[in-house]
């Protein structure tokens, strides 16, 4: 079964009950095996991990300085844009996203601390950490809880009720791609919840100062100061900075949309996640949380350079299992995770970039049209690709 078989899933074959189910004992054992893997990596963290992230940092800053400098040489304009794009991609993904997850907090370096780091986008790090680290990573793919399902503007799951607004799904997705950093920045304002009456405009008041300051700083740097420093080349530099931001937007959007939206990725209802009794009523067990992360994420295959440029979000499954482990470790443990999934009969959704993107695009277009999952579909398991990475 491959992800190219999106037409099979068309409309509607799956519903929550079609997921591979694990017994409570299996979930516990599954969780314990993952805890053990995590512990092994934590114990092994050290100089090599520190040296790696510092090297990436140095490379990123190198590209940034080179990019800014090359704008003084008009014929090198494409090189300047390229260097600056690489800088922004590295800054946002392999460095920013991962550092802000606390992956390097153990180093005790304020420059690599999740509490101090801010990234080269218009989204303030503090606001992103709430919506991403907390909401998205805790409630991954739980409908109604995880605001990353469609980001409040797209229909990305059959169980989101269709309305005529969603006819524009592909258009909204395209705009979100082009304006991705702005989408990420405005994500925390939860506009869809304000429209739905679940959030008041006043709730956003504390967010505005930080957001506006960050937007001002980013715009000042990219669209005024650096262009002005190149004197008569102002328009060229301005355009170059805008293109670099655009390149980063498109790249980040594509990588991130492959993380949770390819065909075969499961969503969950709040009720089905409450699999054990806690002191304060039903709650989700750690084993089920791990299980949900595996079923709710998808990987992208590729070479080492691709993994670095994707911030190792090409290992979205490993990232969602262990969001606070240094991302460089994900490729290292991926074979083990895959083997573990095989043993428990869980799908391990992976495929090359073009397939995963194709699958996401197909879903965006398909869900523009009405249609819920039909009940009693005949598809047995999630349509995960099982071919070798």
């Amino acid at each position: 079964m491959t992800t190219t078989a999106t037409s099979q899933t068309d409309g509607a074959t799956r519903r929550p009950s079609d997921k591979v189910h694990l017994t409570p004992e299996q979930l516990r054992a599954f969780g314990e095996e993952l805890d053990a893997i995590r512990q092994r990596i934590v114990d092994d963290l050290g100089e090599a991990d520190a040296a790696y992230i510092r090297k990436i940092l140095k490379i990123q800053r190198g590209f940034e300085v080179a990019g800014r400098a090359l704008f003084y040489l008009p014929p090198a304009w494409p090189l300047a844009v390229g260097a600056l794009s690489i800088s922004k991609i590295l800054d946002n993904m392999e460095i920013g996203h991962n550092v802000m997850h606390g992956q390097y907090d153990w180093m005790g370096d304020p420059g690599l601390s999740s509490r101090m780091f801010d990234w080269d986008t218009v989204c303030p790090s503090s606001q992103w950490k709430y919506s991403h680290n907390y909401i998205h990573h805790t409630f991954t793919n739980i409908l109604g809880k995880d605001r990353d399902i469609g980001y409040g503007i797209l229909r990305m799951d059959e169980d989101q009720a269709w309305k005529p607004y969603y006819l524009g799904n592909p258009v909204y997705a395209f705009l979100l791609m082009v304006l991705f950093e702005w989408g990420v920045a405005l994500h925390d304002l939860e506009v869809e919840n304000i429209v739905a009456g679940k959030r008041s405009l006043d709730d956003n008041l504390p967010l505005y100062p930080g957001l506006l300051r960050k937007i001002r700083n980013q715009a000042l740097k990219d669209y005024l100061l650096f262009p002005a420093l190149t004197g008569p080349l102002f328009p060229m530099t301005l355009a170059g900075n805008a293109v670099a931001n655009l390149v980063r937007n498109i790249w980040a959007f594509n990588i991130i949309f492959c993380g949770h939206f390819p065909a075969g990725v499961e969503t969950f209802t709040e009720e089905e996640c409450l699999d054990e009794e806690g002191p304060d009523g039903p709650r989700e067990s750690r084993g089920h949380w791990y299980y949900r992360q595996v079923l709710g994420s998808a990987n992208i295959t590729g070479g080492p350079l691709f993994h670095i440029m994707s911030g190792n979000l090409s290992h979205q499954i490993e990232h969602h299992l262990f969001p606070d482990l240094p991302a460089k470790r994900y490729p290292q443990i991926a074979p083990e995770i895959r083997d573990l999934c095989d043993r428990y009969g869980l799908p391990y959704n992976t495929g090359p970039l073009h397939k995963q993107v194709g699958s996401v695009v197909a879903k965006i277009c398909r869900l523009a049209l009405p249609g819920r999952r039909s009940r009693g579909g005949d598809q047995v398991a999630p349509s995960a690709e099982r071919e070798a990475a």
Partner: protein
Amino acid sequence: MYTESASVDEEDHPPMSIAATLLRSRAVAALTSPHGVDRYLELVNPLWAANEVRARVVSVHRETSGEHPVGTVVLQPTSTWRGHRAGQYVQVGVELPGGRRVTRCFSISSAASMPGEQITLTIRSNAAVRGERSVSRFLVEEAGPGTIVHLGQAEGRFVLDESPATPTNNHLLFITGGSGITPAMSILRTLLRDGYDGRAGRKVTFVHYARSGEDQIFAEELARIAADDNDVTVHLRHDSVFSEFELRRLAPEYERLDTWACGPAPMMALVRESFGDSPRLRTEMFKLGGEASGTAEGQVAFTSSALEAPNTGATLLEQAEAAGLTPEFGCRMGICFSCTARKTSGTVRNVLTGEESDLPDEDVRVCVSTPVGDCAVDL
């Protein structure tokens, strides 16, 4: 001539004056946003900084030998160092093998410094606690010329707190034990350096307790100070403990003297007892690693809220909430770092890994940290 002397240290300082002003300007801050100019400078030369303070170890020499030797580390800070007042301490961060930077506070032993001037730290090399590598051991026994360390600015109020414009000639008393001598030494050195004709210009009584003659820090210098005609009386005590009886003999009416005391906790308890509630006594404590006890023993202090409660063995977050606080939190399972708070003292156990940590001033995720014995957290 001046330019020559300036060029000697060129490597160690960022380009001075105009460049430094430029680097600290708002324009450069805007251009290097959001990371800040120091994040770029450090990649070129670790001793280039516009705002942060770092220092290069110039030399390390031993004051005492033995199992826990004491060493003096001479540091050349970046020009961002604002100087210190005698008696102050500084946070020192070192990169220990294993990629971890650990920060500890040490008193400065050299006389008061001006911005950018060299300082010395005099440190006893303590054993590693539970496999955690020791910063003091690293600085005394492993660091050498060229090692880079991270500094804060000088802090602390254990200083000669009188205005330089209106100095007095009050009799001063110093009572120190072990490596607690360092801040007092800084004050004494400053008095002798800045005083007229090498004299302190006022009566100074300097009482120090060391475990033995071999453990005596600054032995030669103190002998010289004791021998000179400089208004300073030095009393070194070996193999004996502090007593009020002896203090009264050395300094009758000591309660009325401006006093600075620094030493290990048992000695400090005795000193405090002798002085009652005299406002003239200034003290500085060492931070010693908390004694690890059972899981539900001791007190948990929430320092920002000035609350304290008996440790129930639950996570710090749960205990804070039980105490009526509403700390920020997110996932409550250790992944999102929303709840990260500063633990100022005590030991915590990570419930996910079972790992225990007793580092002071450490950021912990309170949702997955349980206190082991006494613990203080900034909530």
